[in-house]
């Protein structure tokens, strides 16, 4: 193939143009086909539209009919509306009236509202007050609550304290070394402590509620059972306070019938001024008695020993005074007389001490015989005549003629009268008065009264006057001779004889001493006191 290159290129161009024309023709043809197809579609669409229009026409015909029906309905409605309008008018009128009424009501409402407003405001204020009050109440309530709690706590603490105190008191009572018994006003045992149980052998449960006097018998120093009436407890419950006299010890009888010497103090329990019971505290004094006995024995021994030197002084001064050793000058005589007198006082003191120890040891022997108390008194007065005259004391005496002889120990009775009379003389200042009388009372007792206008006994010391070695303050300076034993001895003797010795006294006015002696002593028991010691030694 290599003819001419230009020819070839031309031919090629013509070919290519022919090919392009062919292609163009094919394109147009294809376009025509498409257009034909499109035209066919459009025809179909026109047909569909025409059909739709037919339908629409038909629909319109239907709609016209509906419109007619609607118009008719509307006509009915219009008529109805006309009626409604009338009703509306009436309603409107009514509404106008109502409106007017409402206007009035509105005014009233306004006024009410205002009132309400005021009220509301007031209520608001009240509410505030109430709120404040409420708050206060709340605070108060809280305070009260706290106070209540505190109180409750205090009460419970106090109760606990009281409980403690009570059990403490009970423990104390229980452990007191002395016997303790509490009785009600009928004398029934309410409480006893441990010492009571130990001393008397009774257990609390055995005797609570029973009569103390019956459960625990008492005997006096003579071994005689003390009667119900004479029991201290009975006397205290009847209203009189009484402290057992230690010089008159007694015995308590144990459950096992053995006994022990006792001293006790009984006091009434007084509530609102009424005796509701009594409390008794008692002690076993066996030991004390032994010590006391030893002491008394010592005094007795010492006194006897003192008598020898006293006798020596007595006798030798006597001999000197008698001139046995040559003549004495008046001065020497005076001095010797002082020695002798001083020694005599010592002798008297020793004698008194021995009397006391005899009384206490129970070795005092009583020799009773019919005794004329009036004569005895007169002889005692005679002994004091010198001193009475010296002190210019006016002595008056009166003795009833009816006084019989009484069976008693004249020496001891003399000691009693001697003691009281010598006190009256000693403690009455110069120019004073002493009055003595003896009368019978109730036909069963002799009553002797010795009254003086002397110094008297100070009130605060009156209860000690019968105590051994006691001397009242107001006479110690005035008289150095007293021993403080006289009245102790006198009372012991009188009581031994079944009588009583007591006194009334006012300081600086004088004293009256009373002695009663029974004509017949209920029971004579010479060895009673001696037995007392034998027993306590057992």
């Amino acid at each position: 193939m290599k003819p001419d290159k230009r020819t070839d290129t031309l031919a090629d161009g013509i070919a290519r143009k022919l090919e392009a024309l062919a292609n163009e023709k094919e394109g147009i043809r294809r376009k025509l086909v498409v257009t034909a197809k499109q035209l066919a579609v459009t025809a179909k669409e026109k047909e569909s539209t025409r059909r739709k229009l037919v339908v629409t026409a038909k629909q319109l015909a239907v709609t016209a009919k509906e419109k007619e029906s609607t118009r008719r309905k509307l006509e009915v409605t219009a008529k109805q509306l006309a009626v409604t309008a009338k009703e509306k008018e009436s309603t409107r009128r009514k509404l106008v009236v109502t409106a007017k009424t409402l206007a009035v009501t509105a005014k009233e409402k306004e006024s009410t509202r205002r009132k309400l407003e005021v009220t509301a405001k007031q209520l608001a204020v009240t509410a505030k007050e109430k709120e404040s009050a409420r708050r206060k109440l709340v605070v108060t309530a809280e305070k009260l609550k706290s106070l209540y709690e505190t109180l409750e706590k205090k009460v419970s603490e106090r109760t606990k304290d009281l409980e403690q105190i009570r059990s403490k008191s009970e423990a104390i009572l229980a452990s007191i070394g002395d016997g303790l018994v509490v009785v009600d006003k009928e004398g029934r045992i309410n409480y006893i402590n441990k010492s009571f149980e130990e001393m008397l052998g009774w257990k609390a449960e055995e005797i609570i509620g029973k009569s103390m006097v019956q459960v625990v018998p008492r005997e006096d120093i003579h071994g005689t059972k003390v009667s119900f009436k004479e029991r201290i407890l009975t006397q205290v419950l009847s209203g009189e306070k009484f402290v057992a006299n230690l010089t008159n010890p007694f015995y308590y009888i144990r459950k096992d019938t053995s006994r022990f010497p006792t001293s006790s103090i009984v006091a009434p329990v007084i509530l609102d001024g009424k005796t509701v019971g009594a409390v008794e505290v008692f002690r076993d004094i066996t030991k004390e008695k032994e010590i006391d006995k030893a002491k008394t024995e010592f005094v007795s021994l010492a006194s006897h020993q003192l008598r020898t030197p006293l006798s020596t002084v007595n006798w030798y001064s006597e001999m000197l005074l008698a001139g046995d050793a040559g003549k004495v000058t008046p001065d020497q005589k005076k001095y010797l007389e002082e020695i002798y007198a001083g020694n005599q006082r010592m002798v008297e003191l020793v004698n008194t001490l021995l009397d006391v120890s005899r009384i206490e040891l129970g070795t005092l022997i009583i020799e009773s015989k019919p005794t004329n108390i009036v004569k005895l008194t007169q002889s005692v007065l005679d002994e004091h005549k010198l001193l009475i005259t010296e002190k210019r004391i006016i002595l008056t005496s009166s003795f009833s003629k009816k006084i019989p002889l009484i069976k008693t120990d004249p020496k001891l009775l003399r000691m009693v009268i001697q003691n009281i009379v010598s006190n009256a003389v000693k403690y009455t200042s110069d120019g004073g008065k002493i009055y003595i009388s003896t009368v019978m009372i109730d036909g069963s007792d002799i009553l002797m009264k010795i009254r003086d206008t002397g110094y008297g006994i100070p009130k605060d010391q009156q209860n000690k006057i019968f105590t051994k070695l006691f001397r009242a303050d107001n006479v110690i300076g005035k008289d150095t001779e007293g021993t403080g034993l006289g009245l102790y001895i006198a009372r012991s003797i009188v009581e031994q004889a079944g009588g009583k010795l007591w006194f009334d006294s006012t300081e600086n006015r004088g004293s009256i001493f009373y002695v009663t002696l029974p004509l017949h002593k209920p029971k004579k028991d010479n060895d009673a006191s001696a037995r007392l010691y034998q027993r306590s030694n057992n």
Partner: protein
Amino acid sequence: MNTPKKILIIEDEKTLARALELTLTHAGFEAKLAFNGEDGIKLLKESPFDLILLDLIMPKMDGFTVLTVLKTEKIKTPVLVLTNLSQQNDIKHAEKFGAKEFFIKSNTPIATIVTRVRELLK
């Protein structure tokens, strides 16, 4: 002149015995001393006495024993007891044993004793 009456003083307290001796001699009696019961009995056995002044509490032999011995020995010499015991029991006891009288020395002036002796030996 009468021979003086013989008095035996049985007393252990020498000063008291001497006082009695002096006073009784002064009063015209013949007094002899014994300082205990035993010596007293010895003297009594040696020669008779008109009166005995007897103490009760003494060493060796006390007054009560002396009284008993006097009784058994049938010595009838009157006895005045001079003592400082003042228990009534002692007094009774002494009297039962034959003592004629009983004096408490400290309570009795020596003159009283002399008077009683004189009366008894009249």
